[in-house]
């Protein structure tokens, strides 16, 4: 029993050694066709490897290109940002316009219902009306101190009982184009018409009257216009009715009458 076992061990050893030395055995046993096929495979593999290398290289290049493209895209984004900033710049005037719109927008007035009283006063032959409810007071003209660097229509500051009134040369504000030296010298301001509870006062030559007006006696200018200071036109006297709040805002802003022209 020991001999057959030893023989089988020998067979197993050979088998295993054959298994371990498979290729040389194959090479030895392989026919020239197989050898050629193997060579062809090796060449093909080499081609594939070089091709893969090339492909990798191309891929690397493409990656580089992608990076480059990205870097190109970034400035493009920047351009877009610049465009945004340009847009913002473009928006700014709109904002300014909107703020102008706020000036123009007419807030509901208490005197827009039923009859109301208005004070009429004269400036250089022009009659102007102001709703009594928006009249802050009437003062006699006293010494007015001019301040340097202010617009022509800003007559100066008048002291009245510890209050400082900003006096407007009404003629110069309302009709600057008609105010020549002759007209300026002929102006004889006697009163200051205070605008609501603001520090602004309009110079007036004469006080005409206070009149009760009905809604129908005024051609109202409710839509936003270039003349936000104008509430409407009194039909009978063909004179301007002031929108006091809008006028105050214009004066606070240092705007002349042609601000929106």
């Amino acid at each position: 029993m020991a001999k057959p076992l030893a023989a089988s061990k020998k067979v197993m050893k050979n088998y295993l050694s054959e298994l371990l030395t498979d290729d040389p055995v194959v090479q030895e046993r392989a026919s020239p066709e197989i050898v050629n096929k193997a060579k062809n495979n090796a060449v093909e593999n080499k081609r594939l490897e070089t091709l893969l290398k090339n492909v990798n290289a191309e891929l690397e290049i493409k990656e580089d290109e992608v990076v480059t493209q990205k870097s190109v895209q970034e400035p493009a984004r920047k351009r877009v940002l610049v465009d945004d900033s340009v847009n913002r710049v473009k928006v700014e005037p709109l904002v300014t316009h909107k703020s102008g719109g706020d000036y123009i927008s007419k807030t509901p007035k208490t005197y827009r219902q039923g009859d109301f009283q208005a004070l009429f006063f004269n400036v250089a032959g022009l009659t102007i009306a102001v709703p009594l409810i928006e009249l802050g007071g009437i003062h006699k003209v006293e010494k007015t101190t001019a301040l340097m660097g202010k617009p022509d229509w800003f007559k100066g500051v008048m002291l009245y009982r510890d209050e400082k009134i900003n006096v407007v040369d009404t003629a110069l504000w309302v009709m600057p184009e008609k105010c020549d030296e002759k007209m300026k010298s002929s102006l004889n301001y006697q009163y200051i018409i205070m605008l609501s509870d603001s520090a602004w006062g309009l110079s007036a030559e004469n006080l005409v009257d206070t009149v009760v007006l009905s809604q129908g006696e005024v051609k109202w200018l409710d839509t936003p216009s270039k003349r936000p200071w104008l509430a409407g036109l009194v039909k009978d006297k063909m004179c301007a009715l002031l929108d006091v709040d809008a006028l105050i805002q214009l004066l606070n802003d240092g705007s002349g009458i042609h601000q929106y022209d």
Partner: protein
Amino acid sequence: MSDERRNSSDKAKENDEVLQWVTFKLENEVYGINVMQVQEVLRYSEIAPVPGAPLYVLGIINLRGNVVTVIDTRSRFGLESCDVTDNTRVVVIESEKQVIGILVDSVAEVVYLKASEIDDAPNVGNEESAQFIQGVSNREGELLILVDLDKLLSDDEWDELKQF
């Protein structure tokens, strides 16, 4: 106004500090300048014109061996020039680290004003001279215009003065 002075001005308002102002007249209006900036007040003496000087420079005077440039305050404030009188004075001031003189019609007095008594001037007008006004105050029924001397000249003009 320099930041330092603006801060001190803000602090003065907060504490309602009393500030002293030298008042002077120009064309019947009373102006005030901070007493801390005034070095001295001189009677009018001959002002030597400087050829090629800017319009706002009247000329120079010799103040104890030092040359002081005198500014035409009237033209600076947009007022017409007038003849020199016995009351005409040159107020020597220090502003923006420079000593200059300003020609005024007359010097009135030194007044004490609480910070709370000073109001801002109406914020209208874009002219350069509108910036000179630091504030206004009701002084015994008369409006006192307080002048910010630092803004009397632009930065370029202050630099220009250094050359005199």
